[in-house]
């Protein structure tokens, strides 16, 4: 090893030189002279060919450069979005949103509208997911941007791939009434009275019909719509009645599904109640 003090060297420049030689190959061009720091490592070895000397220099330079990892020049952090004074919804509500979109997407509009009417904002980590999910639907995009607050526009400014597209980007902004209206779901006329009936009555009728086989799997879609739109104060009683159906009953699988939906909606509305 050399004992002389190593002068300051520009490892970046010597690496660029090595790359240039490596492109051509040592059959065409000799490796550069090793800079002092690198020469200290490789000069005491017997390297009979240019390619061997080149390999030794490359290995030593990579090792030294890696061990000397340094930060790049300091830069100013990006300015944050305007402040949003609304409180963030509770973590359970954010978790519920993930459950809703994976299991009960029929509840997503209600989740969003309840959050907006209660005065919450969504937690920041949910914002990219919401903006990505609602890029094309004009009304849902508008709701998502309202729920995300100033962070939505700020994020889109930095990551244009999150911007609205299709109708959501070309049509005029939807009216407040359009945004606030919960979409209607198809429910057969004979089930419509259950939308507004007392909880115990709905629970009794629904559980009885499912247990007896009057309402079966073929009615699943409309029953889901019914539970998704029935009075919120009926949900607990309906869920309890459906959960009570015996496992041996023909209606048990359908009852379990609807009970889960009723409980999910009940918890969702509780979590998104006013702050």
């Amino acid at each position, binding site marked *: 090893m050399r004992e002389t003090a190593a002068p300051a060297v520009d490892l970046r420049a010597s690496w660029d030189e090595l790359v240039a030689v490596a492109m051509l190959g040592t059959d065409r061009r000799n490796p550069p002279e090793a800079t002092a720091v690198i020469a200290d490592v490789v000069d005491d070895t017997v*390297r009979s060919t240019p390619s061997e000397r080149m*390999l030794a220099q490359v*290995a030593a330079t990579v090792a030294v450069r890696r061990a000397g990892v340094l930060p790049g020049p300091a830069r100013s952090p990006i300015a944050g979005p305007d402040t949003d004074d609304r409180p963030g919804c509770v973590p359970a509500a954010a978790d519920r949103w993930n459950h809703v979109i994976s299991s009960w997407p029929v509840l997503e509009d209600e989740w969003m509208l309840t959050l907006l009417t209660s005065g919450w904002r969504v937690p920041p980590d949910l914002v990219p997911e919401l903006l990505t999910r609602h890029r094309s639907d004009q009304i849902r995009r508008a709701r998502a941007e309202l729920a995300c607050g100033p962070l939505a526009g700020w994020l889109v400014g930095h990551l244009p791939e999150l911007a609205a597209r299709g109708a959501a980007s070309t049509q005029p902004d939807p009216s407040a009434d359009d945004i606030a209206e919960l979409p209607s779901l198809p429910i057969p006329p004979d089930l419509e009275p259950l939308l507004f009936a007392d909880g115990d009555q709905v629970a009794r009728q629904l559980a009885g019909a499912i247990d007896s086989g009057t309402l079966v799997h073929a009615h699943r879609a409309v029953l889901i719509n019914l539970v998704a739109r029935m009075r919120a104060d009926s949900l607990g009683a309906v869920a309890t009645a459906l959960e009570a159906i015996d496992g041996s009953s023909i209606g048990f699988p359908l009852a379990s599904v609807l009970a889960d939906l009723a409980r999910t909606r009940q918890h969702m509305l509780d979590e998104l109640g006013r702050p």
Partner: protein
Amino acid sequence: MTRWSPEQVEAIAPTPAALSAARPLTTVAKWAGLGADDRAVWGSCRGSGAEPYDTMVDHVGVASRCTCPSRRHPCKHALALLLLWSAGDVPETTQPAPVAAWLAKRQVSDTGRSSDTTSPRSSTTETTPANDAAPVGGATDTPPEPVGEMPDRDRARDERVERMYAGLTELDRWLDDRMRTGLADPALAKYATWDELAARLVDAQAGSLANRIRRLAGLVGASPDWHSDVLAELGLLHLLAQAGRRLGSLPGPLADAVATTVGWSVRQADVLAGVPDTDTWIVAARSDTREDRIEVRRHWLRGATSGRWALVLSFAAYRQSLDTSLTVGTAVAADLHRYPGPALRALVGARHDEPAEPARPPAADIVSACGEIGMLLAAEPWLDRVPFTATASIAVAGSTFMLADAGGTLPLIAAGRPLATLLAVAGGEPVDVTCEWTPHGVVPLTVHLDDRSIDIGPRADDNFVSAA
């Protein structure tokens, strides 16, 4: 100069088959640059490869060197060269520089030995493999010599060491060819160029290096700076090939690290039998990557007391499950059993309590984080990923986002949802973030908040792995 007889040449052939393979090469037309003097005989044999094989034989010290990929020593080219010489078909000339350098080096290493190398038969084990450049530090790179009768297990181990040694020698020769022909060589754009080498390394029990070679193939043409990226990786492979052939002369922990990096597998039972590293381990981050046809999950753990990092790996082939027992943002009191050497890899042993949450690792500023990364890379320059936790804001230059504080910046290589989540959570404020340093930039894995941690690391494709 006394030439050998054909019988003397036959005597050093490792097998009769090697001699048979050599005979077709004993025509002068197949050779260029033939020459001999009172110490050596040399020449270049045109083989099946694009480049001729440079062969030289020390007929006094009885050793040979050849650039062919054969694992037999002496190879058929060295035997053919000796047969040509014994027949009087090699002219006497002066030694070319590479031969002189090789002999000089042999002279140096021979002075450190006392073994008898005068008779052809007694000195066959002195025949050294090709590409025997002296190591940094000057240790000998002769492969382990077989020692008399030994138990089968030791013999198997020695055979394995020899195979690995031969594989590393071949790797270094291949790297040398790359240096000679250059990175602009169109052969580098062909996957077969890399795959054939990887297959030979698998045969040589150097599976980890084979994986590295296959990953390296993916760097060719992948970015405007691919020449630099590929060259750096070739340099590290050279470092490993050289170190792997000198395990015996390396300090213990470094030798362990090199051996495991090259592909020397350690049985899990042996690791679990080691002294446990007991601590409360904060699960700081998770990162999934697909390597060939295997999904690899990395859990980065940090000791709450020791501050030491550890890496717990799990693997899943198609439709298999990855480890879900460690949840980011929790802490688990457990025994970790570390693999040999300074490497971070460990196995989780006994768990002493239920996971507690929330838990977050201590965070450093960017300059200190670079210092921590540098320490780990100084110990093992070939590491692909190094964990760190920093408190930083986000800055942007052009299209590159970076972690930033008053001390400097580190470029991020995140995109899509992970980057969007990091930006949204940070806003314009500093946040604690656990990342993996890689040679190409920093991958954000976890954003730590006061009440929870958000896992934003790369996640395995659900269509590939099955839920646990």
